[in-house]
């Protein structure tokens, strides 16, 4: 479903600030794979996401989604195959527009936009039915402006908007990091439910190791622009946070690494 081959990306090339964000990263995901990505800040996780979504173009290497080479395709052109939820709850929705209008925008991800109404009676029923999946009562507030929703509600709506049109790839970029623990748990559970139900091929970046272990069938750890550790389904089941930390320490040569420095 997703093939990343030898992706190389460098920022500020030729200056003293030169930074290799991705160093020949290759990753292959089969349909239905749910890969969680962990790693400290600057490890290249977000760059990886941005290369897949098309926000960034790699200097070398290829990105293939669903059999099509998308390496240099513009972001909005490949968006028909990619659903995305951002870290910032404000980033995934349009605040001055209503819930149903936001859903209408998302509905058009896979279709050409026309001069037909974005919200019709039939579509409204469809939106309502989808909103019920969130168990937040949003189905009764279709005409509420999204700016009035709480961060958790907005993130749940973003998740729904990214997934209800069956994307080939779902990208979750620390999508629970800005929420309080109980809201984060709600979104984590919703993520699990929706991904399972639709069988979505998912790539999730997180700083929360427990979450990385709880969700998904594969796990990768990144550091300094490289994938330094991978766990397949069987290996992942046996992993614990302690084992992960020990693994990281072993690879890094035990350079005085603490839990804190990995998580922060």
């Amino acid at each position, binding site marked *: 479903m997703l093939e990343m081959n030898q992706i190389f990306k460098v920022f500020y090339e030729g200056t003293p600030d030169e930074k290799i964000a991705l160093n020949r990263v290759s990753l292959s995901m089969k349909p239905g794979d749910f890969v969680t990505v962990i790693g400290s800040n600057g490890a290249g996780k977000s760059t990886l996401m941005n290369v897949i979504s098309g926000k960034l173009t790699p200097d070398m290497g290829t990105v293939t989604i669903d059999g099509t080479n998308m390496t240099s395709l513009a972001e909005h052109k490949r968006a028909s195959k*990619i659903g*995305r939820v951002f870290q910032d709850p404000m980033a995934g929705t*349009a*605040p001055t527009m209503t819930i149903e*209008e936001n859903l209408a*925008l998302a509905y*058009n991800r896979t279709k050409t*936009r026309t001069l037909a*109404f*974005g919200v019709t009676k039939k579509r409204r029923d469809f939106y309502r039915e989808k909103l019920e999946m969130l168990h937040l009562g949003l189905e009764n507030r279709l005409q509420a402006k999204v700016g009035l929703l709480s961060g958790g509600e907005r993130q749940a709506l973003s998740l729904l908007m990214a997934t209800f049109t069956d994307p080939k790839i779902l990208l979750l970029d620390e999508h629970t990091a800005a929420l309080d623990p109980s809201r984060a748990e709600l979104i984590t559970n919703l993520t699990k439910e929706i991904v399972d139900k639709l069988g979505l091929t998912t790539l999730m970046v997180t700083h929360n190791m427990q979450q990385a272990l709880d969700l998904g069938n594969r796990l990768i750890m990144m550091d300094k622009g490289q994938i330094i550790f991978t766990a397949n389904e069987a290996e992942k089941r046996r992993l614990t946070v302690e084992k992960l930390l020990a693994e990281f320490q072993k690879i890094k040569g035990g350079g005085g690494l603490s839990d804190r420095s990995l998580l922060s």
Partner: protein
Amino acid sequence: MMTAMFGAVESGVIYAIMALGVYLSFRVLDFPDLTVDGSFVTGGAVASIMIVNGSDPFIATIVALFAGFLAGCVTGILHTKGGINPLLSGILMMIALYSINLRIMGKPNVPLLAEETVITKINGWFASEWSILLFMLLVTLVIKIVTDVFLKTEVGLSLRAVGDNEGMVRSFSANTGWMKVLGLGLSNALVAFSGALVAQYNGFNDVGMGIGMIVIGLASVIIGEAVVGHSSIARATLAVVIGAILYRMIVTLALRIEFLDTGDMKLITAIIVIIALVLPKVVDRQKAAARKKKRLQQLGGSSHA
């Protein structure tokens, strides 16, 4: 006095079309587009030259609309493809249009008093002093309703989302660049349409008549929002129309003041906009202060009891 006010409402209704254009760029797209100062005159220039050369005034006015659309698209392309800052791309286009307008007109002022215009035609159809006002009101309301409907279509929704959260619409496969070009095109189409009608209403087109037009548009949008509110699209566009009429009335009243003359118009406009922007904040602050004082008094009273 009554005649002056009647005239103010009449021209206010025509300027409301321009204000709706400014609403599209300024509020919907969140793009402060200064092209308006130029494209308003472009509309007048295209229409007046066509009329002087014998075209049907209605066709001339429609062609003016398309000319404005083109001008707006160029501003949009300068910004999205050329990567020029929004304000600067508008200013560049405004300056460029000044020369282009002179080229179209051939001279700085084209008189239309002896020509058959939309205004003389309507006056010929309905011999009533209300005919212009009612006809223009009808045209403006039709444009308002079409705008309302358009902003609820799939394309319209993504246009609004571009002004609201650009990154988000891109992730839902909308081409935000072309959306901006389209939005600015539509905005300036309305502005030029209004310019064409104003030129015919005034009986001449002058190359300088667009100066400060963006501020007049903004004044209409801001006054309207302050008076009518903007909780929904339909309400916001209605606010813009009413704001444009109110603006004309305020200016007419201001010009009644002894020591002010027509040359002071731009200054009056600027002051109106400043008042409309500052006054709501001052009122809010005073309301908050009054509430605070009241609460303190209540607390003080209960502690004595």
